[in-house]
């Protein structure tokens, strides 16, 4: 390979059993050794890397583009019906659709699409059908690591889809069966649109094993026999070979019949030339198996040749994008951000921060003025306090002299004569009077006690006159504190109850009943209600 050839694009088919590299007219087939989990063994990796370096004369994707075909294992595909839109908007819409259809986020997928032509598909004028392929990016990491190339320079597609290019143009229904050593891959097309992609657990190794078993020969001999199947074989060996082929191919034919309705099947891959005619027989009448007669050589497989033919530019090619969404999309996404609401939220947040400071700035002068006004009224408040306290004290020290006289008058029996009444503000009451008999004295005492006004009532002296017509009494009483004494029942306003009763029942210094003097105000009636209750 020359330096000029190193700038040519590189086409690789990553098969399960082998990798095929093609650049220009040069190619190489590299066998692959895998672990049970499907990953490459370390030794295989090293040998592959060395071979790749040798073949590419440097990192495989270092200078030119790399087009890769990968097996269908691990690839998901969907046919999506989407509303018609401009080609610029389609990737965005597809991404949203993929996000809802696939279990993995589109950013973690390598995915590609192609529009299915309107003919032969369910489609209305306002919708379009899209075929989408997707594979986890992590599944491609192994290939990228081996290539040592920048992801942007490497394009992946399905080998199965690419192979169709080798039989194009073909209309109607057909399928391509690629036979590998341990497995096979079948892709069915309807009018060039892929309808089915399956991996079959059948490989050319099955035929070799069957021949080995039937002929009782070594494996290498069985492989040679398989290579000579295309030639005419005669004799008893031919019958045994037929039997061996029958055992192996019936299994394959059964699998194909179950999943594929296409009657025309193109075969490619290992030993496909040899088994194609036999497989047609086992598939049954109506089925036709055609071997894809390609100019084979190192690195030249149906897939690599197709990739070379397409070079990623043809409509049938689906490139799996391995890069993150482009910045243009990001800008487009931010354009849909609710900028108006964000600005509003920012303004509100700013107000929340600034308002306390604004309030402080605006309200401080008013508040200061109000406080100064209140402070200036301090002396007034102090005067109110003093006057209030003084008058309360004055009220507290007002003694109920008239109430006491009123009660004496109410309680005294008819004909009683009081000679003297003495009272002081400590509540001491002393009286001296004349009553008719002892009964009147007792009645007077009980009435004074029942009034609830006095705490104690005592008659210190009771002297009966010589003619036993009157009793001179001298008594003392103590009225209760204002908080505990019973309120004196208020006489009706306008009447001089105290004076009238005192005059009716008895007269101080006179027995004569005098008419009431209406100029004397009633004890309680003239007092304001606030004070009345406490008297």
């Amino acid at each position, binding site marked *: 390979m020359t330096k000029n050839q190193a700038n040519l694009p590189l086409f690789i088919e990553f098969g399960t059993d082998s990798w095929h590299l093609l650049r220009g007219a040069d190619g190489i087939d590299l066998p692959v050794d895998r672990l049970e989990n499907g990953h490459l063994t370390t030794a295989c990796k090293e040998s592959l890397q060395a071979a790749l370096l040798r073949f590419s004369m440097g990192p495989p994707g270092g200078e030119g583009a790399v087009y890769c075909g990968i097996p269908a294992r691990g690839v998901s595909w969907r046919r999506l019906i989407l509303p018609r839109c401009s080609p610029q908007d389609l990737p965005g819409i597809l991404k949203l659709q993929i996000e809802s259809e696939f279990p993995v986020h589109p950013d973690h997928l390598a995915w590609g699409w192609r529009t299915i032509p309107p003919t032969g598909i369910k489609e209305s004028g306002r919708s379009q059908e899209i075929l989408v392929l997707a594979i986890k990016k992590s599944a491609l990491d192994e290939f990228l690591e081996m290539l040592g190339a920048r992801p942007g320079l490497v394009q992946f597609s399905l080998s199965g889809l690419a192979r169709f290019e080798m039989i194009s143009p073909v209309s109607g229904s057909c399928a391509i069966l690629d036979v590998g050593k341990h497995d096979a891959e079948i892709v069915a097309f309807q009018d060039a649109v892929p309808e089915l992609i399956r991996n079959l657990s059948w490989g050319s190794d099955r035929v070799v094993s069957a021949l080995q078993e039937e002929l009782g020969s070594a494996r290498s001999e069985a492989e040679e026999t398989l290579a000579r199947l295309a030639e005419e074989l005669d004799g008893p060996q031919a019958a045994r070979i037929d039997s061996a082929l029958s055992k192996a191919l019936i299994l394959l034919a059964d699998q194909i019949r179950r999943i594929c309705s296409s009657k025309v099947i193109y075969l490619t891959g290992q030993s496909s030339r040899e088994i194609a005619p036999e497989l047609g027989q086992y598939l049954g009448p109506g089925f036709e198996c055609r071997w894809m007669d390609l100019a084979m050589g190192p690195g030249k497989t149906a897939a690599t040749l197709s990739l070379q033919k397409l070079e990623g530019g043809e409509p049938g090619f689906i490139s799996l994008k391995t890069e993150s969404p482009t910045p243009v999309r990001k800008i487009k996404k931010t354009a849909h951000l609710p900028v108006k609401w964000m600005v509003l939220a920012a303004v509100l947040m700013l107000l929340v921060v600034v308002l306390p*400071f604004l*309030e*402080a*700035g605006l*309200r*401080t002068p008013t*508040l200061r003025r*109000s*406080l100064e006004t*209140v402070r200036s009224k301090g002396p007034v*408040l102090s*005067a*109110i*306090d*003093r*006057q*209030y*306290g*003084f*008058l*309360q*004290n*004055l*009220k*507290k*020290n*007002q*003694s109920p*002299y*008239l109430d006491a*006289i009123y009660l004496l008058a109410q309680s005294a029996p008819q004909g009683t*004569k009081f*000679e*003297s*009444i*003495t*009272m*002081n*503000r400590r509540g001491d009451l002393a009286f001296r009077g004349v009553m008719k008999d002892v009964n009147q004295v007792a009645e007077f005492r009980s009435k004074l006690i029942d009034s609830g006004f006095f705490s104690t009532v005592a008659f210190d002296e009771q002297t009966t006159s010589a003619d036993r017509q009157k009793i001179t009494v001298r008594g003392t009483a103590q009225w209760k504190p204002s908080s505990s004494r019973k309120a004196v029942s208020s006489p009706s306003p306008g009447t*001089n109850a105290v*004076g009238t009763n*005192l*005059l009716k029942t008895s*007269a*101080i*210094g*006179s027995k*004569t009943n*005098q008419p*009431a*003097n209406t*100029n*004397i*105000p009633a*004890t309680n009636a*003239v*007092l*304001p209600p*606030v*004070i009345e209750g406490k008297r």
Partner: protein
Amino acid sequence: MIAKISISEKDRKTLRFGAIAIAFYLALFIGFKVYQSMEARRKSYLLLREEATRAQFELQPYKDKVLVLKTLMESFKLDPGKLSRPLVVAETSAAIQKSASSGGVMLAQVRETQSRSSSGELATIQMEGAGPLLAVLGFLHHLDSLGYPLILDSVAINSDPAKPGTTKISLSIILLDFEQWKKEGTPRA
């Protein structure tokens, strides 16, 4: 003549970074100072508001106090603020005598005794008189509303055997000192 200085791209970049750093520092410094000043003002406002709330709380009872005070002043017909200490004893004595004579009570003897200033009392007035019973009672009733801070310390009512229908009365009246109350604000009487 101005010398032309050539600045390399690296120096230009350094200068640009320096300018940005200084601008950033200044913005932070000034912003912090402004914030500090505003925060101090806000704290002062909060203190002021707290003081105003306290003042409002203290003022609240005065609404009721004023109402009660007004009622008391009306009932006693007394405005303590208008009392004149040098004249109040004479005025009170005159008012009592006037009230007695207008009510029909003839006062015979009036004695005024100056009280000790520390007791909160201005003077003690003792008086004796005579008159019809109803006139005496009316006189007692009107004593409260004469418009002076009077406390009736003791009352003695006696019959007059010499004059039937006439009652003798003997009173001891204490005149409170508002000036003294102003100074001390404690009840004495």
